[in-house]
């Protein structure tokens, strides 16, 4: 069965018809009888002690169900990596969106007034809002030192390289927070029944994260907590962790009111209160030889985690491991640190730390190129990782990746050299400047290090009574095509038509824990398990003599029907087992960080308008090696969509903070790209294959988020000859940069005039 009849083809999206006809059911489309609507009363200050809560007159409070921390049956926390984040603040608040009270009422229209009518008196405490303030430790807002987590990655003898270096190149790079901005806001419905326990239906990525959080919060055993994923209108990491909080709130209201309760955030609440991409600061100090070889370097990667631990240690880990980019470092020391501030916790967003540290790496490569006097192309070519060499964590590259070839092809299809020459010849005249920028990068697929081993995911494939096949996973669809690709894999493995395979709705009562739908792991890791569970179905039918080695779909159907009729439920399970050649040392942070890396080179052409200071992306070439492409249309959609988000991250999307609170929490003033802002994005795949993934696939979802920001800022530097080292890069930043550049030039002019020599 190696002909790949289905894998590699763009079959119709499983749930596509329901989506284009508006029939898909998202959580807000679900109405339960006698349902109440819930709302959240939040802190209004970044840090302090709650002194008094008063309910203003003029509201029929007796019509409301009101829940406070005292109503929590179990532990007052949202369990994730740690238990530090309360579900409802009891005494202290640590950020300005911290939930304190919950209200529910049969009429959703009266809730906002009621929320406003709750007034809370605080004893304010000093708060901190930046990485630098947190590092200063004048206020300790978390633990003993404001530090959530540190990692140290060390390779080779760094201390010996500085004196051998012909150039020592330093740079500091920062990235801002970014809102995921899924178009469907977060929402959850909960219902409680003393006999059956709690059930929640919601917009979410990770059913078993919510399940675990509700068990702890409600003090219920696993079988009395049920989590059902509804159709989910985009997530991008933004529905990885916060849905546990909303589910917890809806559950508490449902338990107290004994009625179903729906909580749907409006856009403003969703943007202000839920997680965003971690702001970051990266410092590079690199020793380079005169021929442009990296000899070694020190990298400091720091992220702002906000008020609670949440996922920051894992975001930090991925950022740290990607900080060296796709280059060979004979020696390196990477210090990574996640710090606490009094902002709402930052969280998962496509790329998960890698877009931040790779922005720094790829900007820094251009800086090194300038220092050494080489082109951005040549500096990369001389330092690319080669097969047989080891990454910063000493992971040896085994696959025959040729990054130089990837670079050449990207330069060719983008017409890089001719354009660069032409833009240089056009010179400094006219009202626009054009430039070309490159980024080369990698993205590790699956959980970092020993993560997959700890997750120990389980997948089921069921032979149904009607002879069809159903895939049982908690892996969720939220636009990427999970249902489609996992069905393709099962159909391929069983030699059945794609139409004969269906997907169970992710419902913890029904499906096993196949792990969270994150980290570009679904196709590669879960897909491989689906393949093996599907083969289990086939093997069982063959060994029970119901099926021969080769069979038609009709014969399979008959055999499956026969098996179920004779023996009942027919399910095959497959559990993740770490490949024996993957080794990871959690203490030293050394070893095989990922089962596979996807590799890419992106080339961007920009125009900077000197009148408006706006930057437009004119052409975008995205070339990547992602193993076998299982569904070309969906894969292309993932790449283009990720690049669009990354263009937003680079040029449009700025979270404006004041005292830890997002000030522009509306689509009116937080600007994401529209169809007329984006260029056509040209996508190219190389396919090397991957032994660990289903049918040779690697992870693909996050990769396209990593490269665009540095490629764009490199192109802006090429256009203006001014280095910018932060994103988002907005017109006002370009204006400032040009003004400073003009000032510096005129100061230099006057020095030249007065002394006759350049100082």
């Amino acid at each position: 069965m190696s002909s790949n009849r289905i894998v590699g083809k763009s079959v119709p999206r499983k749930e596509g018809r329901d989506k284009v006809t508006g029939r898909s059911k998202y959580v807000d489309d679900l109405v339960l009888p006698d349902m109440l609507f819930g709302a959240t009363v939040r802190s209004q200050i970044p840090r302090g002690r709650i002194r008094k809560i008063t309910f203003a007159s003029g509201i029929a409070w007796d019509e409301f169900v009101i829940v406070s921390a005292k109503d929590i049956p179990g532990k007052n926390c949202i369990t994730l990596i740690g238990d530090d984040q309360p579900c409802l603040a009891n005494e202290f608040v640590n950020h300005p969106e911290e939930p304190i009270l919950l209200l529910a009422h049969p009429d959703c229209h009266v809730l906002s007034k009621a929320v406003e009518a709750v007034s809370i008196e605080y004893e304010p405490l000093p708060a901190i809002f930046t990485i630098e303030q947190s590092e200063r430790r004048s206020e300790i807002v978390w633990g003993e030192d404001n530090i959530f987590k540190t990692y140290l990655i060390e390779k080779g003898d760094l201390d010996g390289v500085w004196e051998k270096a012909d150039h020592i190149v330093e740079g500091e790079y920062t990235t801002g927070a970014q809102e995921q901005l899924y178009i469907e806001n977060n929402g959850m419905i909960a219902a409680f029944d003393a006999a059956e326990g709690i059930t929640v239906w919601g917009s979410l990525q990770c059913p078993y994260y919510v399940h675990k959080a509700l068990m702890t919060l409600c003090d219920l055993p696993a079988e009395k907590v049920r989590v059902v994923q509804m159709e989910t209108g985009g997530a991008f990491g933004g529905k990885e962790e916060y849905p546990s909080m909303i589910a917890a709130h809806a559950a508490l209201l449902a338990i107290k009111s004994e009625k179903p309760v729906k909580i749907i955030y409006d856009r403003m609440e969703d943007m202000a209160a839920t997680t965003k991409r971690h702001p970051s600061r990266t410092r590079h100090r690199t020793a380079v030889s005169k021929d442009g070889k990296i000899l070694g370097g020190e990298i400091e990667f720091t992220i702002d985690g906000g008020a609670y631990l949440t996922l920051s240690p894992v975001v930090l880990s991925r950022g740290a491991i990607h900080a060296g980019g796709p280059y060979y470092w004979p020696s390196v020391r990477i210090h990574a640190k996640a710090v606490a501030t009094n902002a709402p916790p930052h969280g998962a967003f496509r790329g998960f730390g890698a877009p931040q540290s790779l922005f720094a790496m790829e900007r820094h490569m251009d800086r090194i190129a300038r220092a050494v006097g080489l082109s951005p192309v040549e500096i990369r070519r001389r330092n690319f990782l080669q097969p047989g060499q080891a990454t910063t964590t000493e992971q040896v590259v085994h696959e025959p990746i040729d990054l130089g070839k990837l670079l050449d092809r990207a330069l060719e299809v983008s017409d890089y050299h001719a354009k660069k020459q032409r833009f240089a010849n056009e010179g400094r005249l006219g009202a626009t400047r054009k430039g070309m920028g490159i980024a080369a990068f990698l993205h590790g697929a699956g959980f970092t290090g020993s993560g997959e081993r700890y997750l120990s995911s389980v997948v089921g494939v069921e032979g149904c009574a009607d002879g069809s096949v159903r895939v049982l996973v908690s892996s969720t669809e939220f636009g990427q095509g999970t249902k489609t690709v996992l069905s393709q894999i099962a159909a391929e493995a069983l030699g059945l038509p794609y139409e004969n395979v269906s997907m169970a709705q992710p419902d913890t009562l029904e499906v096993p824990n196949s792990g969270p739908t994150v980290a570009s792991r679904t196709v590669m890791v879960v897909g491989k398990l689906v393949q093996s569970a599907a083969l289990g179905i086939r093997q069982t039918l063959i060994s029970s003599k119901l099926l021969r080695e080769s069979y038609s779909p009709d014969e399979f159907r008959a055999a499956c029907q026969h098996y179920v009729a004779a023996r009942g439920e027919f399910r095959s399970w497959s559990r993740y087992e770490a490949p024996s050649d993957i080794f990871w040392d959690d203490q030293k942070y050394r070893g095989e960080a990922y089962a596979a890396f996807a590799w890419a080179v992106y080339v961007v052409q920009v125009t900077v308008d000197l009148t408006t200071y706006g930057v437009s992306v004119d052409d975008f070439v995205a070339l990547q090696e992602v193993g076998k492409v299982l569904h070309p249309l969906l894969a292309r959609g993932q790449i283009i969509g990720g690049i669009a988000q990354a263009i937003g991250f680079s040029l449009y999307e700025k979270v404006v903070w004041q005292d830890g609170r997002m000030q522009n929490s509306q689509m009116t003033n937080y600007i994401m790209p529209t169809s007329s802002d984006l260029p056509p994005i040209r996508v190219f795949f190389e396919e090397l294959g991957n032994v660990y993934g289903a049918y040779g696939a690697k992870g693909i979802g996050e990769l396209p988020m990593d490269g665009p920001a540095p490629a764009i800022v490199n192109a802006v530097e090429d256009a203006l000859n001014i280095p910018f080292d932060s994103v988002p890069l907005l017109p006002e930043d370009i204006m400032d940069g040009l003004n400073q550049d003009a000032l510096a030039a005129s100061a230099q002019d006057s020095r030249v005039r007065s002394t006759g020599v350049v100082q």
Partner: protein
Amino acid sequence: MTDSREGRARAEISFAVNGEPKTVHVYPMERLLDVLRQHLQLTGTKEGCGEGECGSCAVLMDGILVNSCLVPVLQAAGSSVITIERLAEGGTLHLLQEAFLECGGAQCGICTPGMILAAVHLLNGTPEPTTEEIREGLSGNLCRCTGYSQIVDAVAEAAARRRTTA
């Protein structure tokens, strides 16, 4: 959410939805979006931002593309409203729905109903749009998944098919 009921009585408001006459007993300032979703159970129309920025709640009102989150229902009185549910009546997909499926124009699906109605509106006025006209015509509808390219492909494909079948 503003309290649309305050100081006002409910009223009977009549308009056509997807070709059928409807009369609803509602507060006149209720949003057309809520009336469609909650009173008429037409949940294909989605709310994204509630302030007219994202276009997820777009419907056609007397042939004009409107954001139903910004339309008080009294303004719809006497009008003819078309929602996504109308497009595949009888089970046959509209050309645009087919093209969205084939070209990858729908990912998470939440912007899709509004996006498809915006595309219907565009093709009604501009049957043979250029790529730029498609991008401009859909720029009031935000999509966070696709980066728009495959949506633009779908609209161009639907326009091309309509030419060959017309």
